[in-house]
């Protein structure tokens, strides 16, 4: 692979991060360094190798679909930045 192309504005948008120009410059350099290091994986022969998503031999875990107590409304809202009438308040989404 050639030197990776880094579109920091696109990545910041996907990541939902408002970055300053100074942060963009620094992150682009750091990302370039790390991608350069990661490049060594291209040397490994992975033909016919299955991917590992996690290391435990567990696949489907099923349990009975029965209701049980969860967080109370009060507990669920105790860390909400803004709330009213048992709901979380956000700015208007639809004009």
């Amino acid at each position: 692979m050639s030197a990776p192309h880094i579109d920091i504005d696109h990545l910041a948008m996907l990541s939902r991060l408002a970055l300053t120009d100074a942060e963009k410059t620094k992150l682009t350099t750091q990302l370039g360094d790390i991608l350069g290091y990661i490049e060594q994986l291209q040397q490994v022969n992975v033909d016919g190798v299955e991917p590992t998503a996690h290391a435990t031999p567990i696949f489907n875990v099923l349990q009975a679909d029965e209701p049980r107590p969860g967080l109370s409304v009060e507990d669920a809202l105790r860390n909400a930045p803004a709330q009213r009438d048992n709901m979380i308040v956000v700015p208007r989404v639809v004009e």
Partner: protein
Amino acid sequence: MSDTPLHFKTVAELSSLLANGSLTSVALTEAVITRTLAVEDRVQAFNSHDRESALNQAKASDARRAAGRSLGPLDGIPIGLKDVIAVRDQPLTASSKILANFVSPYDATVTTRLRDAGMVFWGRLNMDEFAMGSSTENSATRITANPHDLTRIPGGSSGGSAAALAAGQLPATLGSDTGGSIRQPAALCGVVGLKPTYGRISRYGLIAYASSLDQIGPFGRTVEDVAMLLQAIAGADDRDSTSFDAPVPDYRAALSAPRERPWRIGIPKEYFGAGLDPEVATAVQNAIAHYRSLGAEIREISLPHTEYALAAYYIIATAEASSNLARFDGVRYGHRSREAETLLDIYFKSRAEGFGSEVKLRIILGTYVLSSGYYDAYYGRAQKVRTLIRQDFTRAFGEVDVILTPTAPTPAFKRGEKSADPLAMYLADIYTIGVNLAGLPAISMPCGFTTAGLPIGLQLIGRPFAEADLLAAAHAYDHANDWSKHTPNL
């Protein structure tokens, strides 16, 4: 035992004193609080603590014991949790500004199990923000010092858990380990730390960093203490579908169980190459010699894909992190920007203000490796390399019982030495990361000190869910050497 101050006694010793009535939980908890406050201005291991809550728990423990209803060997013993594990009604910050005012509405499963064992919660311990780091310098709350040399870092990300234990501020702590975050700080602070098999312990109530790698584990002064703590928290949990329903044996009893044949210990040549500090190498060779003198059979082995583990880790871990940390959006909990006018603004600005620079870097890197056009070349390839790394270990365990390596390539480094260069910092985890990719259990224990007085750690790696064997192999060395008696002068 008698001349060790209370704050440097082991959990096993404290358990005996509580059981025979020569110590109360209230007296012990008060001693722990006094010691914490006496050295905390130098160590800076705690994000928060709650004296009234701790003393109330201690009183309840003493009352249970007086009524003949003790909850077992850990009842009344204080423990501190890394500030990434939920304790109901206590702050939970992950050492991040984005959770600066968060109070947990529920208990993690490990917290529930420690309550059921009667342990007394004292303190929320500092860490690298969201467990991303190897020095605890990425904390947004404070900089924790290594108790053996206050100008040096304690390791990370569970630096507060290791430093508080080494400093005598707590007799036991919990941390979490995604790429070495229990074992590396344990090594650098001269204590014992266990990263259990992936699935051995429920992750319910652990703030997620990389879900396929994260595992909670105990820190203690001795392997025996770690075995006692593991006993309390191990086992399946229907709130974490990745926890595994394997039997939980009696880990403490296994430490001294007779063995039918000598240990076969594998020494992977890839873990002793360039970059290994000579004093660390010597201490580890001395430990190998000690095992040989105990009758162990030492075999050189090869884990040929070791050199690719760090690269695979930084793709997989950051990919998972970029997804996990999407939940911090300023809407339901956590920091919400005061500058935001639209919903989209809330996301962008709350995250920009709340996350530190290393967290932003890892979110950006994870987003990159998952993004359209790069997914197969990075994430897909890393998952295949992960398979090869697992197969290396599986093959090795066909001929050996445990694998012995250094825990970290160097002793504790100076504060600020690597903080400007993420890649240099990542190399601090080079010997611990393969274990997480393979999902294996591994322990770090002290194996000596440098001439400058810095602790050196030895890592033993075991087969999946064979913690009993791993702990027994570690105990054989730890019990005979007793490095835990070398406490820092604070």
